[in-house]
């Protein structure tokens, strides 16, 4: 370890924290692209998110609340969970539906939102290719029940896990990474389930990805 650049002036730490000015950030990136010492330092610091996701490392925030119980921006962290963990696969529940909107699995990294779309049951919503925040009207859940959201392709045969979800005053907010979807027609189903898990009400929202 002979190159001090990553540790001079706390440069590496400030880079991780997003505190470097653009010029210094770019210069430092160029440097560690081709400096084994500084790259080793940054690779180690790059493990921070993985370690922070490990169980028990970070104290849990107060539990997110479900719709209809006065939740204020209850960010149900990674409710349908990060890409690849597969709560919903092949159109079937990979875990019992009760886990949906309640999961506390690994959180995805912060996502930059490219667009916001408010859905309406009467018209198809066109999604841009990007990370889209969907605002979805949802019915109030029955006492002891819940509301589930599932994304299908138009044949209904494929469901996609949604990475984040929040509920506030009759609207669910769902972040969808549309770059991971095939262009075509998609459908978001909102189901109101009773205490026994029976579907009491269902709303479909048509989505078009171009």
């Amino acid at each position, binding site marked *: 370890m002979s190159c001090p650049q990553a540790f001079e002036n706390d440069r590496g730490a400030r880079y991780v924290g997003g505190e470097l000015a653009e010029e*210094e950030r770019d210069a430092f990136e160029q440097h560690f692209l*081709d400096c084994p010492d500084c790259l080793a330092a940054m690779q180690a610091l790059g493990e921070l998110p993985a370690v922070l996701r490990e169980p028990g490392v*970070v*104290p849990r925030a107060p539990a997110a609340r479900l719709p209809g119980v006065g939740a204020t921006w209850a960010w149900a962290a990674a409710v349908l969970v990060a890409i690849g963990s597969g709560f919903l696969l092949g159109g079937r529940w990979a875990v019992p539906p009760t886990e949906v909107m309640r999961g506390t699995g690994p959180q995805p*990294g912060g*996502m930059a939102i490219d667009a916001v779309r408010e859905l309406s049951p009467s018209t198809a919503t066109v999604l841009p*290719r990007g990370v889209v925040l969907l605002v979805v009207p949802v019915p109030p859940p029955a006492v002891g029940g819940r509301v589930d959201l599932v994304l299908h392709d138009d044949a209904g045969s494929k469901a996609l896990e949604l990475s984040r979800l929040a509920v506030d005053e009759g609207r669910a907010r769902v972040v969808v990474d549309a770059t991971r979807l095939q262009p075509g027609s998609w459908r978001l189903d909102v189901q109101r389930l009773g205490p026994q898990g029976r579907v009491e009400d269902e709303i479909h929202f048509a989505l078009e990805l171009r």
Partner: protein
Amino acid sequence: MGQGPLVSPQAFRDDASLAARVGRGEPEAESELVARFRPGLLTMLRFRTRDPDTAQELASDTLMAAVAALRSGKLRESERLAGFIHGIARNLLNNFFRRKAAVPPLEPLDDHSDQLQAPDESEAEERRAVVRRAIDQLEELDRRVLSLTLLEGLKPGEIALRIRLSPEVVRMRKSRALRRVAERVQEWLRT
């Protein structure tokens, strides 16, 4: 970085030589280019995008674009390869964030699958162990601040609202926590 290390004329000659070999389509040169820059690109892009999958894609796109550009002789004489490749990565990142899908047509790389696999997991685990020990020594509140910053991408002002501290205190805690982790990393690298 105000005073970066001096770059030797030899470094420029090495870069020019590698660029010329890639430009001639030598497969070994492409492999060398990928081996040299892919780890750094992945690290940088993971920090920037906070998404390992996207980082993988963008790193591959960057290297493919670099090879295509080098074949067209686009590296200027006075330019270092790192700067050249960083410029490509930055453009692709900007495109990614803007979602304009303006990536130019790229030539496929030859098979570099041996270099495109996940980094050595034991090395990654060793790094995580160092970071874990550093985090263990942080206060719980500092860990929460780091989590909200690095996992959820929140700014100090947003974190302050969540944990009912002033933005200045959040900023101070974040900087201090990151500095302590970096110090641990530095100690580890010295050993």
